[in-house]
């Protein structure tokens, strides 16, 4: 999942701030949690609409499946944004901004 993480650079060394590290780890955990749920949800919506009858006749992504994945991902990001806004509106302290760790 190396595509998820970039990495800036600021080369002065120093002491490790444990609180900062903990926040970063929590953010990292949330990003991968959301990513895993996105993978599962869109797999259900686009690849396995009927698990009982589906026998995986081929290993390639069909054209329709690929298009569905793109739309499904886009909708998932929108839902992420709406849920974040709603939680803030209800007084939550959500720092959610519609991105997953993007600033």
């Amino acid at each position: 999942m190396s595509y998820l993480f970039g990495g800036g650079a600021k080369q002065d060394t120093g002491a490790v701030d444990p609180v900062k590290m903990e926040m970063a780890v929590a953010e990292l955990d949330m990003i991968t949690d959301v990513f895993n749920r996105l993978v599962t949800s869109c797999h259900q919506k686009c690849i396995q609409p009927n698990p009982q009858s589906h026998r995986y006749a081929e290993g390639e992504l069909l054209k329709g499946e690929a298009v569905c994945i793109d739309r499904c991902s886009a909708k998932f990001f929108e839902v992420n944004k709406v849920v974040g806004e709603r939680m803030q509106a209800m007084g939550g302290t959500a720092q959610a901004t519609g991105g997953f760790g993007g600033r």
Partner: protein
Amino acid sequence: MDFSQFNGAEQAQMTRLIEKKQMQDFMKLYSGMVERCFNACAQDFTSKALSTNEKTCVQNCTDKFLKHSERVGARFAEHNAGMSTLAREQTGC
């Protein structure tokens, strides 16, 4: 949970651990709600934008889920309080 047998250093560390766990739980609540409300509300994949109906559904789903969690949490706290009282009466502590 009863921390009365914990000394000061232990209570301090436990407080930090509980705060950390609360942050993790909050984030899990958040991502779980995204998944749940997405699965319940996003049905049409002929478009990549949420329809007005889908968006309303997600908003209602989020509001309702938060109220649901809150109510369950209140019942859970009552139950735990009751169990602690019962245990104190039985053990005489």
